[in-house]
């Protein structure tokens, strides 16, 4: 079991939770577990079976694109942070 931190703009899709547990041995399995339970997240996280270019996924503080992308293996108890771009300044 790992924990996925949900950014504020996506919390509406997961019933308001700040963090959601998910199962999986790779980033792909974790995200698909999450999106299986909260299908409205899918277009906001993946595009053409890849992590969407406007979202970053961090595993223990490292961008998974700099690791092995969706195939990056995940240790039990890891923290994953989803980070979509935010424009707000005003």
């Amino acid at each position, binding site marked *: 079991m790992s924990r996925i931190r949900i*950014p*504020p*703009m996506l919390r509406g899709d997961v019933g308001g939770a*700040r963090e959601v547990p998910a199962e999986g041995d790779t980033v792909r399995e974790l995200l698909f577990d999450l999106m299986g339970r909260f299908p409205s997240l899918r*277009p*906001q996280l993946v595009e053409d079976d890849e992590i*969407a*270019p*406007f*979202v*970053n996924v*961090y595993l223990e*503080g*490292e*961008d998974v694109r*700099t690791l092995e992308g969706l195939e990056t293996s995940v240790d039990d108890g890891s923290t994953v*942070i989803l*980070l*979509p*771009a*935010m*424009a*707000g*300044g*005003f």
Partner: protein
Amino acid sequence: MPNYRELLQQVKSEIDEVDVTQARGLLDAPGRPLVVDVRELDEWTEGRIPGAIHIPRGNLESRIEQAAPDRAQSIFLYCAAGNRSAFAAKSLEELGYENVVSLAGGYTDWKRSGLPTELPRTLDGEKRQRYSRHVLIPEVGEEGQLKLLDSRVLLLGAGGLGSPSALYLAAAGVGRLGIVDDDKVDASNLQRQVLHSTSRLGEWKAESAKRTLEELNPDVEVVPYIERLTSENVERILADGWDVIIDGADNFPTRYLINDAAVWHDIPLVHGSIYRFEGQATVFKPGDGPCYRCLFPQPPPPELAPSCAEGGVLGVLPGIVGSLQASEALKLCLGIGEPLVGRLLLFDALATEFSEVNLRRDPNCPVCGDSPTITEYVDYVEFCSGRPAHA
């Protein structure tokens, strides 16, 4: 008990002294020692040996470790005549410094021999008082404060993030602040945009900001740009010369535009963004870390990117994130500390939690990568609309 003269003789016999000729050789040679002027402030302000730093004799023991953390560092001390610096050399040896010399005859002999001197720039009495809490910090000091007064920071937006940034930068004495904002003060802004006030409703934010900031600190020149940053005006605005840019924009087209401009002009960009209870900050420093496009190659489709106007924001949140941006900008102007380069700081006000993720430069980045494919301004509104961009 020895009298003063006897004590001086004894100390001089225990330290290494050089005369002006030897001193000249020492200071011209490679591996130049750290030159420390131990005289009082009024003497220092009347002229010094070029490149010297100033630590008055009375503060020497407490401040020398900051200037010379390594005990093996060569240190060259001087005062007016070579007596105070002799005692200073003795104190440094007692502190464990191994390579300390004192200039016999001091600055008086140096100057009489026709060797080069320079007049240090100093803060006048009023500025010394205004910035005294900066001057007291070893990492800032008088030189740092003079640097801030010479610094020029451009702020995109005089809104939530721009308000605290601009206030603190002005208070800190950053000499020139540019403010780009094409909006007017609205009642719904005042819950967080502390640059403005109820009496300014309907005024241009850039003008309102100028009034507030110049009232706070008349040393600061505020340049208002009452316009939205676009591909057409960005070069003109940057031509006014800026050392650091603070991005407090509220939309993606402006964020991509200023990113590209900052990369091409080699200007550090201090990024901040906020939404509801959460904020992010980082520094994009060209050549020394990623840029915004490395982090987000593409903006989200508009329907997935709510703005603060739609999603709301806790009033104090921009206060925290904007202050972090000001702190990063001051560090960049001063050249001190570890700026947030290659690190994205995340703040969650509800949990009161800071976390950090690592950012890396993308060698394939279309703007700052090894083989850039975007080399001129594009249509940023179109690029962010989800339709294919030109470039």
